[in-house]
């Protein structure tokens, strides 16, 4: 079985390499065949592995490594991506799927040369990751690595089945903008079809990336028990950077946005997004950076570094070849939509660079001077807050600006309604909560909400897309509000006996009992607490501590009681069965659950905005709207064509 699996992976690599050569040689029929066959080969390899995992076929080393007798079928299935070797195979499958999807979708939409060049780049990536997968060799593991079992954290939560696949899908889909960027540079041309596909595939990557990142934040919040959702961990950053690039790319490639020097930006952002994805893969799998997400040290590091360097070098060589595309002399007035878009992409690029610096500098400093430095949340908060403010303000006001040139007087005449609502909301929130930053964030959210309502109510061409994009903006605004709000919580940690109380702010938790149960796989300690606020019962909480004997690992299972304005978050930190005392961490986390809602809103907005329009009679729908003149906020997310929907 192991030999068949390895043979399938090898043949996937060879077929993909052949496909890349055939695409370049413009033997399209054969190239298509080889591309599809390479997908089938890796699909068969993954099916074989899944079969072995579900049947717990101990002849396959990886199965021994990641599963155990009592593991439920669901976690056996997800075990494919719970350790490094299998996750690389799964990664290869995702990449092969998006490659075939791109070829099928782009066949009659892109000029043949462009399609061939892009497909060749994608097939080359499939071949490269097949090589990585062969070295990782999940079917026949090296002696030492079987004992190196994955954390029980990856067998403890349903999100394991969704969070990694979403991220892998988003990451690998970003290979398409990279390939399109290379294709444009190689052919020294772009065009409407190219831009449509660039945009469509960026949306296809952006939606699962956004959902995946937020699901990961929620998982961390719901499981790890420290009460936070984002730690500025280098690997979290590695997923954030491609997302930032994809977000910038979305705001560059919309049809009406293609007026403010968009082409060089689209090409560079498309290249950077996937380069950062490969960097993330390298960081997580090489042991270079210490992080809870990192897999162990392995010989794959140098190989992945080689893939990264090859991708970046290849792109730079192509950029020199196609440098004529970088000339752009688009000019616009200072107060105009173009400027807003310019600020948006510059600020997103700066955020990405600063996050990159924060993730890599400690490692670089350690290697160069031997000094150990830590870069943590306070550093990121202080360096990124000014840029975040700029981005949020531009996000709110930008859709109200006119193309070409605008005047302050006319702008104020248009935005008075959202501005007044925002000011009033800020005032009320400041009076009630007494926190300036939260009040301003609430004002911003109100501004975007009113913009959305105006965008929906007033009839103008492109209403659906405009509403979708404004809905996505509303999601971002709510997320900002939630992030600000979650900083004003209360936390108390205390050891209490049965009948005693922990108090955080105006919320209390009274310990009723501490119990222990053994469910075969793990030894569970459970505290039973009564929650109360202002004399009203909030019911019971039963936080747990789960001891995994086989892994000698303790996991916390906090209990979260989501209320409208805050979460009551109870963690059991320690217990003493003899004295029946428990150490309880009681936290009140304002607005955190709004973050999950915000993610849903943003994703829904993006999907609505990018959903392909029904083809109208009489040819291409006009993208010229009168919005700027009728006082409708317009995010200009118009005419994504058939790309996104067709691809999704």
């Amino acid at each position, binding site marked *: 079985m192991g030999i068949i699996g390895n043979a399938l992976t090898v043949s996937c690599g060879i077929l993909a390499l052949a496909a890349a050569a055939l695409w370049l040689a413009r033997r399209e029929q054969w190239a298509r065949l080889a591309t599809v066959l390479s997908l089938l080969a890796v699909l068969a390899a993954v099916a074989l592995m899944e079969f072995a995992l579900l049947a717990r076929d101990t002849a396959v080393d990886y199965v021994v490594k990641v599963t155990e007798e009592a593991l439920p079928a669901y976690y056996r299935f997800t075990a494919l991506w719970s350790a490094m070797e299998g996750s690389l195979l799964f990664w290869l499958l995702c990449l092969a799927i998006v490659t075939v999807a791109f070829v099928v979708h782009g066949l009659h939409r892109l000029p043949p040369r462009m399609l061939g060049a892009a497909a060749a780049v994608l097939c080359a990536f499939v071949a490269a990751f097949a090589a990585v997968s062969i070295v990782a060799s999940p079917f026949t593991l090296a002696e030492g690595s079987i004992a190196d079992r994955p954390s029980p954290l990856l067998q403890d939560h349903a999100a394991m089945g969704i969070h990694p696949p979403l991220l892998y899908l988003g990451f690998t889909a970003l290979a398409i903008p990279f390939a399109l960027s290379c294709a444009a540079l190689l052919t020294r041309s772009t065009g409407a079809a190219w831009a449509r596909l660039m945009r469509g595939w960026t949306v296809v990557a952006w939606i699962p990336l956004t959902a995946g990142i937020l699901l990961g934040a929620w998982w961390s919040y719901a499981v790890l028990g420290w009460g936070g959702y984002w730690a500025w961990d280098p690997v979290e950053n590695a997923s954030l950077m491609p997302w930032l690039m994809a977000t910038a790319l979305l705001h560059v490639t919309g049809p009406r946005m293609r007026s403010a020097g968009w082409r060089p930006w689209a090409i560079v952002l498309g290249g950077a997004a996937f380069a950062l994805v490969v960097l993330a893969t390298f960081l997580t799998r090489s042991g270079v950076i210490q992080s809870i997400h990192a897999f162990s040290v392995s010989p794959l590091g140098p190989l992945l570094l080689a893939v990264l360097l090859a991708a970046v070098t290849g792109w730079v060589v192509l950029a020199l070849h196609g440098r004529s595309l970088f000339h752009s002399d688009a000019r616009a007035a200072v107060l105009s939509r173009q400027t807003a878009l310019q600020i948006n992409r510059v600020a997103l690029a700066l955020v990405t660079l600063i996050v990159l610096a924060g993730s890599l500098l400690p490692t670089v400093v350690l290697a160069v001077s031997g000094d*150990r430095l830590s870069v943590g949340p306070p*550093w990121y908060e202080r360096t990124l807050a000014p840029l975040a403010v700029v981005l949020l303000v531009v996000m709110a006001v930008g859709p109200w600006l006119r193309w070409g040139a605008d005047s302050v007087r006319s702008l104020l005449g248009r935005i008075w309604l959202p501005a007044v609502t925002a000011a009033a909301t800020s005032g009320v929130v*400041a009076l009630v909560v007494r926190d300036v930053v939260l009040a301003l964030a609430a004002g911003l959210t109100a501004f975007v909400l009113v913009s959305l309502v105006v965008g929906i109510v007033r009839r103008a061409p492109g209403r659906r897309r405009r509403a979708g994009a404004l809905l996505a903006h509303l999601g971002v605004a709510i997320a900002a509000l939630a992030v600000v709000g979650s900083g004003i919580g209360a936390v108390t940690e205390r050891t209490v006996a049965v*009948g*005693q109380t922990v108090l955080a702010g105006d919320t209390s938790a009274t310990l009723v009992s501490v119990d222990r149960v053994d469910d075969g796989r793990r030894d569970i300690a459970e505290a039973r607490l009564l929650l109360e606020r202002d004399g009203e019962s909030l019911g019971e909480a039963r936080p747990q501590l789960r001891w995994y004997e086989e892994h000698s690992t303790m996991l916390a299972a906090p209990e979260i009681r989501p209320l409208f304005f805050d979460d009551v978050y109870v963690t059991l930190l320690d217990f003493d069965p003899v004295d029946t005392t428990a150490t309880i961490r009681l936290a009140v986390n304002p607005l955190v659950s709004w973050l999950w809602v915000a993610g849903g809103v943003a994703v829904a907005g993006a999907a609505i905005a990018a959903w392909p329009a029904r083809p109208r009679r009489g040819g291409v729908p006009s993208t010229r709207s009168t919005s700027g003149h009728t006082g409708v906020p317009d995010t200009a997310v118009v005419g994504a064509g058939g790309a996104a929907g067709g691809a999704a």
Partner: protein
Amino acid sequence: MRRWAVGLSIAGAVALALVGILTAVLAPNQRGDLAREVAESLRCPSCVGESVADSSAPVAAAMRAVIDEQLEEGRSAGEIRAWFAERYGTEVLLDPSPLAGGWLLWLVPAVIIAAAVILIVTRRHRGRRWIPLAVTAAALAGVIAAWAVTSAAEPSGSHSPTTAEGAAPAVGVLRDAVESDSGDPQLQLALARALDDAGLLAEAEQHYAAASRLRPLDTDIAYLHATVLVRDGRPVDAVPALERILAIEPEHTPALLLLGTILWEGGVQGGEELLERFMELEPEHPAATEVRELLTEGRT
């Protein structure tokens, strides 16, 4: 008319915003207490990517205790951070100080932002050289001033030493819970213990009794029930509970000691026997010498 209404609403909203923001600015800082802010800026040395504030590791708990201690001694947040940096190395600072080798981490973002500003401004104003320079200088000065202000502004939250809350609020909560579900032995027991802590022994006794009725085989509950009766001055009433314990678990030494003492003091037969059994089982018990004296006293 419409212009008039718009103007009025704008004025009203602006006034509301100003009043609100001013009250918020003047209100005391509520962003957590100082101890937590200091803990959030320190790295837990034995964990991966967790701050001292969030980690449940023993070393983090010890560091939190040190922070509390030093704040009570009147040290500032900066002094405490420096103290930890000296002991654990600069690595412990999550927000590396520009002075202690972390200058690169502050220089790089500044350079990135400066480069971006130069690039944009030179492209907008080709030919007029002083404009990009002036704008860049202004932007950089702004960024540096912002950082300087935020680092100079020490966390200003208040610090209140963690006080141990009494059991008083617990009683109310538990009483409500017992009222709605009086058949839950865990709730009865928790309420009994809360009342016990609060010194309401008579009421506590009733709930120990209730818990004991619901869990007749639980000797721990029965023993708690017996002790509260003794402390409440009703040792004789404790006898049935203690006898039940010994029926279930004949070698329950605390019950042997307590029941033996009660019977001995009451002059009832059998007390001596129980105390002797206790001595056999627990010769090293701290109460053993007293019991021995008691027994010898009785014989003479």
